[in-house]
């Protein structure tokens, strides 16, 4: 500060306090802050809306019934409001999807990051990204009209709508997300760690599995969490290929509705605002949000615990 006052007497020079520069900097800072604030504000608005509308719903239906009733028939005369069938449908289809996406995505990432020559990687990556760019509605019909008939050859008793078919296709859809994030995490592992492993006489595969993957653990965990969130939140594929009947089952060979499929179904109908049927959307939406939130928090904890230290 002494420098500042001294300079003011004479020529301000380079050490002088530039009001203009300062203002410019503050303006940029404000702009960045507002952008960051916006995403937080939107998140808060969504949660507030869901909670408010769900509150109305829970005035009519007790939380206990919501969690323990085994039927979800809000639009029938004999209405039941048990969320479990939808939760089960969501979890089963997500499980199937993740059993496809996580192992395959990881294997692809290991190949691209540790084995593939430069030319192969340059060709394979855009194709994988293309896989992620296909509209989900296309995947939905791919499941319904191609994968289901194919599966029916192996399992003749498989119904036309099934969680299995929807889950498998959803898994394929999620592969690019998992593989590209996992690959980024693995490639970020510094070369000197790999060299350390090779210098001990390790093979490429041993190096990938024993050194690179543990070193990239937090990034890989983030990729998996993203995959899980995508599977739970995916709508179109399950709405088209899994059927829309709420069905409390843990068997992927049966048709069932997921939370997202139900929300789409009801949103498309012409339910009057404020009716109990309309309010169910928000209760279901809040449940979905809580489920993804739980996985995100879990993932965050994992990442904090095993963060990268090279």
């Amino acid at each position, binding site marked *: 500060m002494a420098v500042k006052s001294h300079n003011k007497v004479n020529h301000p020079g380079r050490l002088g306090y530039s009001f203009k520069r300062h203002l410019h900097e503050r303006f940029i800072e404000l702009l960045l802050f507002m952008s960051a604030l916006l995403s937080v504000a939107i998140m808060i608005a969504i949660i507030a809306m869901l909670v408010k509308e769900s509150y109305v719903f829970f005035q009519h239906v007790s939380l206990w019934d919501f969690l323990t009733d085994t039927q979800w028939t809000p639009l029938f005369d004999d209405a039941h409001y048990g969320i479990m069938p939808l939760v089960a449908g969501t979890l089963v289809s997500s499980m199937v999807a993740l059993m496809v996406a996580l192992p395959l995505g990881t294997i692809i990432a290991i190949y691209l990051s540790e084995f593939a*020559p430069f030319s192969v990687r340059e060709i394979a990556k855009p194709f994988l990204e293309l896989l992620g760019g296909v509209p989900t509605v296309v995947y939905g019909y791919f499941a319904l009209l191609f994968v289901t008939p194919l599966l029916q050859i192996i399992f003749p008793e498989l119904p036309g709508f099934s969680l299995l078919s929807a889950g498998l296709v959803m898994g394929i859809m999620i592969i690019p997300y998992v593989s590209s994030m996992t690959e980024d995490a693995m490639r970020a592992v510094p070369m*000197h*760690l790999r060299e*350390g*492993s090779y*210098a001990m*006489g*390790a093979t490429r595969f041993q190096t990938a599995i024993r050194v690179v993957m*543990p070193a990239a653990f937090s990034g890989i965990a983030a990729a998996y969490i993203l995959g899980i969130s995508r599977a739970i939140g995916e709508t179109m594929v399950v709405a088209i290929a899994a059927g829309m009947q709420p069905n409390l089952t843990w068997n992927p060979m049966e048709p069932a509705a997921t939370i997202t499929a139900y929300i789409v179904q009801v949103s498309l109908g012409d339910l009057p605002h404020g009716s109990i049927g309309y309010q169910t959307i928000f209760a279901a939406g809040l449940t979905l949000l809580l489920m993804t939130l739980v996985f995100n928090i879990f993932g965050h904890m994992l990442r904090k615990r095993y963060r990268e230290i090279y």
Partner: protein
Amino acid sequence: MQTSAEIATESIQYKSEVKDLSFYYNTFNALKNINMVLHDKKITALIGPSGCGKSTFLRCFNRMHDLYPGNRYEGEIMLYPDDVNILAQNVDPIEVRMRISMVFQKPNPFPKSIYENVAYGLRVRGVKQRAILDEKIETALRNSALWDEVKDRLHELAFNLSGGQQQRLCIARALATEPEIMLFDEPTSALDPIATASIEELIADLKSKVTILIVTHNMQQAARVSDYTAYMYLGELIEFDMTDTIFIKPKNKQTEDYITGRFG
């Protein structure tokens, strides 16, 4: 340090012999026609200004250059007593690395426990028996003067160790598999003087067990720890002799200029 009479009697005991070695990064000729020997159970230092090819030369010994496309060796590095050229096409680099281990410039412990770091080389060789692992790991950690500091926390992450301890852990890791030659690529350049002194002491102690080739930027270090010194410049081996000779009366003017600090 040894007298020349002693050297003369031992001159046949080579661990390795480099014959007309040239090395290319694609078209760039990084090493030019190098001829030298590694004396068995002795320490050989490679000195020279930055970019002279010291590290490139060192990394030929464990075929590290094979990891990257476009690299090419010419000539031979014979490994004795096998009498095998380790640069030959039919020699598996993994087998070479199993017998010639390396310690890097920057400590590079794996994201594993202290125990698992030292066990790594044994595990990739398929050793599974706990008793054997325990014993070899303790020996390696004792030989790298780290045992007393870590024996109560073998299962903690290696990253929790200090820089000097991490480097000694990397030495333990390289020692655990009982290599015949150990390569050190400027092992103390990332360490403080105290840690450097302990690593130098350790390297001097290891001489009884293993042949050592060390790259160093620090001429005092070369003078302190090595028995033989090679001075390299622009990919060529300018002079190779006993360390005493190189530092007291080098034959080559260029070496003398470098040693006395007039150049480099």
